[in-house]
């Protein structure tokens, strides 16, 4: 290996704990793409003077995606399984000027943290949730996820998945918080644009990012080659405007609907609480 005299720099280094690299993610994994687009969005908003990165609290749960909190240079938390959303609630209650971001996987958010996901959305609680969905439990070795397609093999369903997967985005859409979108790592720039929009909004903002896991999920469906799995995901992703929840599909064999499904400006939980309870001083410092 050739040793470089000077460490090569990357435009996103300022937002990374570069001394922790290399990261733990496998070749062909999509989590890095999702994280990179998030960081680009932060950088651009920072440079445009619209966002102070010192106000970001970046919380994750457990799993491959959960490890992202160790790599980014914000105020961070790596919480127990499924608890990043309530953790973020506490952060915002304590200091309304902070901007909680939850960045975690489908198992973490839609299974063990499913109740928290629903209630944060119902409250229109002030946070941005980015759920990276690779349709499997990657870090624990390929067990069934709530998002695993029907009939697909997993190490805990060796005869195939007898269940139907949850469409977490459709669930959140039905609760109707301020922002609901589904994106895919096959269209990275759209992730960046969506995050930029959602970061500056108030209330509960939800972005699901479809991702690839060739090492585990791909291997289970005989698509170990990252390019093959990527191409398959790209084929099934359909960007659409939807009129109702029924138009959102989550079917690995036909269509996974992507797009921005809800975008509105309803009063957020913190706005309602601080104004109803006469905490006007805190209302003045409330960040998105």
């Amino acid at each position: 290996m050739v040793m470089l005299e000077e460490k090569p720099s990357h435009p996103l280094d300022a937002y990374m704990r570069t001394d922790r690299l290399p990261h733990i993610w496998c070749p062909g994994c999509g989590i890095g793409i999702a994280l990179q687009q998030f960081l680009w969005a932060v950088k651009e908003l920072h440079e445009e003077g619209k966002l102070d990165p010192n106000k970001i609290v970046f919380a994750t749960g457990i799993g491959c995606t959960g490890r992202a909190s160790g790599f980014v240079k914000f105020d961070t938390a790596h919480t127990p399984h499924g608890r990043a959303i309530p953790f973020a609630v506490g952060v915002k209650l304590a200091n309304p000027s902070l901007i909680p971001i939850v960045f975690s996987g489908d198992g973490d958010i839609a299974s063990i943290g499913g109740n928290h996901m629903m209630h944060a959305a119902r409250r229109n609680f002030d946070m941005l949730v980015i759920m990276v969905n690779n349709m499997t439990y990657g870090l624990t070795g390929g067990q069934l996820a709530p998002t695993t397609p029907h009939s697909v093999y997993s190490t805990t369903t060796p005869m195939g998945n007898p269940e139907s997967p949850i469409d977490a985005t459709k669930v959140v859409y039905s609760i109707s918080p301020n922002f609901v979108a589904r994106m895919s790592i096959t269209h990275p720039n759209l992730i960046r644009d969506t995050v930029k929009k959602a970061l500056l909004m108030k209330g509960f903002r939800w972005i699901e990012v479809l991702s690839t896991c060739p090492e585990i999920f791909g291997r289970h469906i005989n698509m170990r080659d990252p390019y093959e799995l990527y191409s398959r995901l790209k084929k099934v992703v359909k960007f659409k405007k939807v009129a109702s929840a029924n138009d959102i599909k989550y079917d690995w064999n036909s269509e996974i609907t992507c797009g921005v499904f809800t975008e509105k400006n309803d009063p957020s939980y913190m706005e309602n609480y601080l104004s109803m309870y006469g905490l006007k001083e805190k209302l003045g410092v409330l960040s998105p």
Partner: protein
Amino acid sequence: MKAEFLNSNQAVAEGAMAAGLGVYVGYPITPSSDMFEYLSEELPKRGGSVFQAEDEIASINALVGASLAGAKSMTATSGPGFSLMMEGIGFAAMVEAPLMIVDVMRAGPSTGIATQIGQGDIYQARWGSHGVYNLVAYAPASAQEAYDYAIKSFNAAYRVRTPVVLMTDAVLAHTRERVVLRDPGELEIVGRKAPKVAPDQYRPYRPDPEDLVPPMAFYGEGYHPIAESLSHDERGYYKTDDEIYRALVSRLVRKVEVNKSKLIASKSYYVEDADVLFVAIGSMARNLLALVRELRGRGIKAGMFRPISLWPFDDESFVAAAARASKIVTVELNQGQLYQILKGILWDNRNKVSNPTIYNLDMPLPTLPTPDEIMGEIESRGWKLW
């Protein structure tokens, strides 16, 4: 200073607010809910926030977030909710988030009897979450002590950066008494130890050598601390290295031991010449004290030791109280949790005590026995105590 007529749930709420409570997150459960209701009225008036979470798991994890973001944070619950919080208590211990959990004990296991007293959570408070850590737990016995120890619990939490459990019970929770509320200037309030170095020099888990407690940077101050629930080094970086893990968890245990003298509390009654030493906590100790006084009236040299800090335990005061006793009797609404603790302490201090016999008066009842009923229970066991 002013006096109010409060039950201990309200007294805890007042104490917590006096200590600077900023965020209360809870989930309703009998017999703790009226504390939640009281704070819902009072805390916003004093600038704090109250939040009803979807469950106890959300409550405790929100408290960790609130604590790291700079607010003094508290929840109150009872046994079933306390069980659900165990995962988050371990998280708080691991990331060294100072916070306070009030456990209003009720009859268990499981949902037990919602409105009745229990004292079965002593070990759960200490060992309920998996792994290797230490925490602090107090058991007050009056509304006044509930107020005082709410303040002391927050002080302990910030002194050693650890979760603190304030253990009351269903009877105490709803017994109204006169409580003296002190003015801010009359109170000792301990806050966080802030970092003294520049953000790029700051290591969130580098302890001060004397008290083993790392200075605490809040979120939003530019220090970029990592709250890492995995085993971590001083930077908060995940490490599976044997020595780093051992150094971390032994510090989590030892920081409470090193600061023990500032944390322990107990009360001794008539122990100078006590031959029979009774031991009890909370509401039970009050009824027992009445019995001890009655026995003294009959010329029996009875005394009582009441631990207030359960973890860490005030073993020195207990040994001093037990020095002359030939019989020690634990009286508890469980199968003998204090009894188990005391056996170990007596064994460790066998050179300092006169080889007393220790009796386990276990009364796993859902109601608080009167002094006469405690006496009846002693007589029914046929023990020769006097």
